[in-house]
């Protein structure tokens, strides 16, 4: 456009018509692609890899797992034979399943309770200013960055009957048990190993939440004469309840999926005492080659995870105090 010339108003305000552009298709296309539509197209394009990934690598496999659960599979010939609900009937009749479910419950509860209690406790202790607070914070967080397998291997090494822990106890005159060979201590060992490794994350999240609590509330409460326990239960806990909820969801979902820790430390033993559901699924599918039954168990695991998550999310209306 040359300066100074008078142009019809249309040409100035309608950007869709460039000088010399007579093609009606192009004009219509430009009118079609409004800002909103371009945004929407961009939206679909941007999310496409993620959505395709989830559909292809999560949803389709779940569907296939349902198909497998209705079949018996010969792994050497690859032949599937339809058996309908036989695998599900086997689920009801499996004599080992109650023990597996019990171990799963004990492990998950143990991990969640210890993890949250310890994480919160550490956060409270470190929520002050003193020399070395950063040092301690780093220290408690450090196991999180250590490879799961390496961490579990080292603990397995220390928990041997003649390993470091019993050697130290022997110095104190205590005869330590064969940790990994007795049911209760093996379960305890698996829980403790898992908690110590992952509590750092919860500690950091709680620290951040604690520091979001306005200090005026504390001062006001102290002026009113409230003791520290009351302050904690009536002010701190409710104000960090969103974090409590989210960390408990994350922790319990993580506990239900904890496979490497158990595979490396106890291999589900002694007997079945540390065989949790996720390990049982692996054992059936990959050690015993019962793919059909393994898929059925896996679907049961999935149901538990989803139920627990939904349950906790619904409970947020009751338990969580503040929501922005």
């Amino acid at each position: 456009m040359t300066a100074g010339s008078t142009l019809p108003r249309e040409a100035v305000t309608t950007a869709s018509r460039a000088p010399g552009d007579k093609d009606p298709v192009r004009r219509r296309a430009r009118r079609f692609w409004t800002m909103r539509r371009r945004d929407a197209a961009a939206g679909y394009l941007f999310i496409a890899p993620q959505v395709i990934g989830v559909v292809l690598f999560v949803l389709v496999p779940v569907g296939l797992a349902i198909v497998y659960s209705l079949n018996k599979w010969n792994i050497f010939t690859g032949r599937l034979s339809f058996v309908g609900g036989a695998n599900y009937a086997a689920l009801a009749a499996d004599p080992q399943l109650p023990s597996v479910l019990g171990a799963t419950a004990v492990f998950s509860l143990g991990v969640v309770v210890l993890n949250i209690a310890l994480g919160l406790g550490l956060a409270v202790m470190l929520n002050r200013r003193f020399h070395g607070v950063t040092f301690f914070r780093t220290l408690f967080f450090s196991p999180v960055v250590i490879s799961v397998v390496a961490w579990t291997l080292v603990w397995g090494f220390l928990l041997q009957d003649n390993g470091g822990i019993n050697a130290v106890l022997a110095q104190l005159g205590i005869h330590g048990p064969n940790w990994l060979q007795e049911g209760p201590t093996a379960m305890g060992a698996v829980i403790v190993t898992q908690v110590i490794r992952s509590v750092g994350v919860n500690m950091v999240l709680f620290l951040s939440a604690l520091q979001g609590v306005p200090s005026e509330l504390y001062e006001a409460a102290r002026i009113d004469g409230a003791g520290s326990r009351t302050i904690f239960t009536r002010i701190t806990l409710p104000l960090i309840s969103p974090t409590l909820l989210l960390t408990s969801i994350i922790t319990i979902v993580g506990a239900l999926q904890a496979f490497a820790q158990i595979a490396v430390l106890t291999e589900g033993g002694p007997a079945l005492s540390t065989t949790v559901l996720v390990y049982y699924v692996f054992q059936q599918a990959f050690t015993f080659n019962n793919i059909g039954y393994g898929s059925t168990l896996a679907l049961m695991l999935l149901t538990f995870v989803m139920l627990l998550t939904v349950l906790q999310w619904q409970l947020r209306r009751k338990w969580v105090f503040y929501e922005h």
Partner: protein
Amino acid sequence: MNTAKKLAGAAALATAAIVALAGCSASPAAPAPTTAAPNSVALRMTVWTSNEAQLALFASIADSYKATHPEIKSITFESLPFADYNTTLTTQIAGGNAPDLAWMGDLSKDLIASDALLPLTPVLKDTKGWGYDDLLPSATAEFSRDGQLYAYPFSNSPYALYVNKDLLAAAGQSLPAEGLTWDQVSTIGAAVNVATGKAGFVIRDFDFSAWNTLATVWTGWGASAWNADGTKCTFDDDKMVGAFTFLHDAVYKHSAMPGPGTKADFFAGDSAFTVAQVSRASLLTGSFGYDVVPLPAGPAGTYSVIGQAGMGVLRTSAHPQEAGSFLAYLTGPENSAKLSQFFPSARKSLLSGEKLAANNTKLTAEQLQSVVVDQIPGAVTLPNHTSPAEIAQKGKTALDAMWKPDADVEKVLGSVCSAISPLLAK
């Protein structure tokens, strides 16, 4: 948009399912005559040994085969770690990456029952000079079905009783001139334990976990884990009760056998006796005086037990005919003699004390004659069945109750049967 997404999803599901099912069905092809072009066939055999000497021997045999068979491009021996051999091989097969030939131990029953192996009898019989009648029937029983051999038993290693003569002398004990029984082993072992604090007898590899190795003991009572065709559990019959009562007393009454959690390594000099395969003789260091004798007799008389390993051709192989020919060559009379320095052969012609001693530095010809040659013909194998891993695990879980001081032997054995019967019935 939602409907389109649903349809797309269903299509993807259907496609994936079809791909999955099609991708894994095997076609049992009949071996076709060799019309392969020169230098076109690559064969792979999975093995569980990483012993340099053994692998070198295989390589040299492969080289001489290639020299006379131009169609072969290469023959590789892939060493899979021993501890997960079964799982790794299964994953290879399931993943469409199966080898042409494979070693197999307790996985053999599963493979044979699933029709995953090529029948070898025609191939071996047709190979000139192979000598099919040279094979011992007792060695081929485990790997045959309906008169067809599916895996060649290349290693047949009998179990024997190793004796630490120094420890016996230290306890003032000695073996009877002949007719050693389990009761005597237990008594001598208990005496050694009292005198020296070392263990009496140890069933190596059992470790209170792998209970199938206890067949080296219970066969002396005439017991077995299940009946001949593997459909009925016989763990709870009187003979087995007798055998386990003996073992339980040995641990908790006489202290002749160490209990769970106590490790004693015979080859390090920690026990007076051990039951182990003859092939373990390579672990003897000569730091103590030793002898190797056949297994003691039980109430049912003398007996022998062997541990076997087979090698077979997988039907999914791209070159089943060439693989079969190579297996026939590898196990022919000339090469079997070479292999027998590591793996006791199933061929009658190779079973003599002198022949075995020619390559054995630890055991004398007489010892080999009595513990190997005389034992193989009438031997039974360790219990084998389809679904071995699951049976092992369920059996072990039930049997764990046995290893407590006040265990009720009969009741525990009954619970073992309840645990594994469903699997036997399959």
